[in-house]
């Protein structure tokens, strides 16, 4: 058996719907025989009648409705058609869901699924990575699974968590990534994973960029350097301890993310290591992000805009020389 990242997301939702009657899925085109723009809910409407519901194109109201249902004991999963459109729902996610526990002592257990990140030809409005933006606001947990196993277990965890979770699933990984089986056990939420061990440099990454980072590490291994690669898994909470422990072993840090360069997860990783682990560093930390422009359409432009294994390797070599 072989299962893709996308199928893992579908299977996780099937399991959630099966095991927990508080769960329902709410989103554009998720229902009927269609099963979502990416087919992440294919067949679920039929298997779970009345619990996989098409919505109008109203991102604000989709999340608002989920919040209301969550307050009444439900565990809604909202599917955004693309992460980019969650900008319409920012207010509900940040200001309503994100503030509710703090204000009233009552948490809002919603999961918002964001099909995120760039794919060829998708252009400025179907390619965004929004984890940095959501992580900036209090009151949210932000997941960025990079493997089939994590896609599966973390979605199940997301729904179990009493607080609002923004679950960033990467569209590039949907079909590219395969595993033999669904996992039987899971890693705790909030813990980063050492995806590759090394001793010369730490690359901290997550989501699709984990795989670019791993390729870069393989490339550089041929040159005799061993790079350690950390998969953050959740960007909020950020597992600073695992990152610091890795940097303690390697003395060098490169943070890699697909979102825009100003601020964000990579900046946060560097800030934390610099403030909490300055003495561990043998060289100034560096980072690789997408460019500070909207995401381009043409594949030639897009592959340059997005951090690639090649660019990461170049940066890593520079760092190793310092």
């Amino acid at each position: 058996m072989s299962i893709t990242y996308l199928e893992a997301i579908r299977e996780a939702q099937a399991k959630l719907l099966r095991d927990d009657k508080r769960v329902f899925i709410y989103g554009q085109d998720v229902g009927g025989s269609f099963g979502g723009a990416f087919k992440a809910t294919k067949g679920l409407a039929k298997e779970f009648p009345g619990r996989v519901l098409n919505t109008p194109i109203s991102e604000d109201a989709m999340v608002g409705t989920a919040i209301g249902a969550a307050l009444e004991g439900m565990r809604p999963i909202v599917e955004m058609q693309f992460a980019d459109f969650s900008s319409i729902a920012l207010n509900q996610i940040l200001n309503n869901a994100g503030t509710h526990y703090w204000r009233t002592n009552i948490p809002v257990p919603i999961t918002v699924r964001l099909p995120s990140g760039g794919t060829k030809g998708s252009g400025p409005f179907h390619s965004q990575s929004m984890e940095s933006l959501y992580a900036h606001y209090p009151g949210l947990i932000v997941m960025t699974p990079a493997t089939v196993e994590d896609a599966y277990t973390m979605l199940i965890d997301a729904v179990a968590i009493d607080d609002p979770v923004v679950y960033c699933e990467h569209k590039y990984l949907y079909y590219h990534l395969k595993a033999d089986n669904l996992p039987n056990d899971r890693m705790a939420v909030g813990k980063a994973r050492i995806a590759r061990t090394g001793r010369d440099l730490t690359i901290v990454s997550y989501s699709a960029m984990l795989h670019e980072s791993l390729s870069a590490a393989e490339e550089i291994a041929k040159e005799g350097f061993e790079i350690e690669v950390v998969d953050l898994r959740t960007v909020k909470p950020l597992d600073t301890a695992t990152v610091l422990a890795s940097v303690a072993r390697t003395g060098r840090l490169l943070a890699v993310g697909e979102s825009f360069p100003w601020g964000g997860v990579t900046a946060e990783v560097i800030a934390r290591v610099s403030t909490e682990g300055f003495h561990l560093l043998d060289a100034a930390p560096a980072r690789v992000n997408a460019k500070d422009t909207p995401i381009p359409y043409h594949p030639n432009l897009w592959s340059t805009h997005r951090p690639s294994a090649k660019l990461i390797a170049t940066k890593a070599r520079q760092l190793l020389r310092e």
Partner: protein
Amino acid sequence: MLTFVAGKAAGDGRLAACAPQISFGATRRLRITGVKRENFLRSRPDVGYNRPMLQTARPKKKSQPKAPVHEKYIEAFRWILLTRTFEEKLASMYRGGRITGGVYVGKGQEAVSVACGIFLQKGDIFAPLIRDQAGRSAFGEPLVDVARTYFGSRTGPMRGRDGNIHRGSPRDGQLAMISHLGAMVSVVVGSLMAKRGRGEKNFIGLTTIGEGGMQTGASHEGMNIAAVEHVPLVVVATNNHYAYSTPNDREFACANLVDRARGYGFEGYELDGTDLAQCLDVIGTAVKRARAGRPPQLVVASILRLAGHGEHDDFSYVTDDIRKEPFAIDCLQRADAFIKERELADAGTLQRWREEAAEEVENAFSAAQKEPVPTGEEEDWCAISTRDLVDAIE
């Protein structure tokens, strides 16, 4: 007979042309005449507000036979009295520098608001907004919780973490509004869907909105999704003719806000918000219809805000002309006069009610004032309930 049906001013071609759509029974007046809809504001941009849009249901003619008094009239009147007394005290405390942040009152809107709260039952969802003290009280919010929230008391429902009108008690069915207008509509929809999903019966949701808040995307999305989900929701929109300082003509360009009911798939009604009897009639009916499984209900009340947007605001932008409009009548004075005219209570009783209200207000403030306020050092600075997932940043 219900008098609030859209297109009520039969002789008024302007309104009749734009309004009539939703009504029930014998009151139905579907008269779409060929009257040209003028919009003189377009040619006179200096006019302070858009007269053709005024949506006032005129007070009933004197010659009409006396309708029976609504069974909740007196109870509602007393909530209004309590609210007015409370908010006057609150405003005076604000002027005395004893309240941090803003104070927002519902002066002039209490009749609409009380009618929003008074028909709700346990199990219903109420999502009030800025000017809904009367409705909140009628729904069951203890006055002391209001005082606590304004003082930031640690014992209050918001524990100093949020203030003034941004409060609620979601476990009791009263949602805690966020500032962003329109955002609560869809939240109520979701709560109602969950209740329906659980098999609860006979519940409704009611949320309020100003005519300004009706222009947000969230409000449109929320109304639309409410109708799509066919939830038992009542939206009570109060057109108090201003959003902060902005008059109607810069807020919307439709002839009549109640027309939107049809657009959304709601049933819609207008009412004169200065008239408590009408508020109880119309909103009470809307609540009943929602409970009976009708489509979502939109009630548009016409009123003038008789205070500033907040107590910091002298509302000098409210023109003299508009202050003379029938919708500028104070609902409390009107109800007071009605009670005297109909001899529903004698002067002594009215006086006693006023004294009791004053005492209750006094008690609420003095109790809240004695309570501890939060401190930065002792605060639990944690925005999520899952403690082991708190992001530990130094």
